[in-house]
């Protein structure tokens, strides 16, 4: 395993730029529920409106972190040399926990205004249910990752499930957002999300292809 810390000054600058760019993207994503109000926001008042809006903010941040999580997991030679493998692994673990927390907050704050006895279950609520499945899968994969050794699950066996499940969760989350929210139904936000999803997919493809060619 490579050293955990960036080796030189130029690497530190690159890491700082990467962190700053990520924070800017997350900040912009978090502002979406304020600048692109969904029609559901229009019909909520008082505390319900606040819950719904901050539920959407949590969801938007989680979406960014999930896409980032894929990049961190796939790594790639440049990212490894800039950040160090140990740092990326640690970041992957912390980011996973943060995503779980945000997704739970998102689900709770979105569902509370409509009532917890009024859950969106059924075929016509399929985008919400895709999000629900992603939430369960995310919690499960995080639980088994953190307690893998305690549960005596072998590394290879765990990774065999963890890796494809991670991609599937990211895909499910993107589909959930594209179809659950009316502000993502068309226009600039839809284009941006499709581009971001496509970009991450392309990154995975390039890194995996280069790795395959290297072998």
């Amino acid at each position, binding site marked *: 395993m490579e050293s955990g810390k960036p080796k030189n000054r130029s690497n530190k600058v690159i890491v700082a730029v990467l962190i700053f760019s990520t924070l800017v993207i997350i900040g912009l994503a978090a502002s979406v529920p304020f600048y692109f109000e*969904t*029609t559901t926001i229009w*019909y909520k008042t008082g505390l319900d409106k606040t819950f719904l809006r901050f539920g959407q903010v949590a969801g938007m941040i989680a979406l960014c972190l999930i896409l980032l999580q894929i990049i961190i997991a796939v790594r790639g030679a440049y990212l490894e040399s800039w950040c160090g493998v140990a740092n990326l692994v640690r970041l992957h673990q912390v980011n996973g926990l943060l995503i779980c927390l945000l997704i739970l907050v998102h689900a709770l704050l979105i569902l509370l205004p*409509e*009532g917890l006895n*009024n859950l*969106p279950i059924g075929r016509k*609520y399929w985008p919400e249910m895709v999000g629900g499945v992603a939430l369960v899968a995310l919690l499960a994969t995080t639980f088994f990752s953190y307690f893998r050794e305690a549960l005596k699950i072998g590394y290879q066996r765990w990774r065999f499930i963890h890796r494809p499940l991670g991609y599937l969760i990211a895909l499910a989350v993107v589909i959930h957002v594209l179809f659950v929210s009316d502000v993502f139904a068309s226009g600039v936000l839809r284009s941006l999300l499709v581009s971001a999803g496509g970009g991450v997919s392309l990154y995975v493809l390039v890194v995996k292809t280069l790795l395959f060619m290297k072998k």
Partner: protein
Amino acid sequence: MKSIVQIIMALTVLLLFAVPAQSAQKWELDKAHSSFYFNVDHIFSKTHGQFNDFKTEISFDPNNLGESSFYFEIAVKSINTNITKRDKHLQSGDFFDAGKYPLMTFRSKSITDAGNGMYQVAGDFTVKDVTYDLTIPIQLVGVKEHPTAKGKLVAGFDGRVTLDRLAYKVGSGKFYELGVIGKDVDVLVSLEVLADK
């Protein structure tokens, strides 16, 4: 001899009264061609919707209104306005609170002939577990042999009523006061029912 005749006559009279009154024709719902529609004002436009899950128990004979009856049961969760988010909002505590009050029912208590195929159907309307008196004017659109199902009769009923949703606590009135959603809901009960000939 005279007393025997009197006994036989008395028994005959008793038997005649013992025969139950002719019950009204029972009609089975043709669900594919029936619905409970509604529309309500939204600022300047009208929002249309319907309930997709409901059942009915209908006994109807225009010549025997005393034995005729209507019972409607509507699953509130089946509300459909073609926008799932709006449906979920209508099911929430802001309106129907479907999780707590899953059904709306109407059970007739009396039916009176208002002429020209119109009937005033008075009964108990239960919404959010509170029962109110409600009279629905229902028109018998027609009765005839079913054109495609042999051996079946088909009848049509149209009921139109305007309900003040706030009187039934369907909404607190905040959206009405904001001038967003009207309080009067036009309801159309359109039923096609079938019976064996």
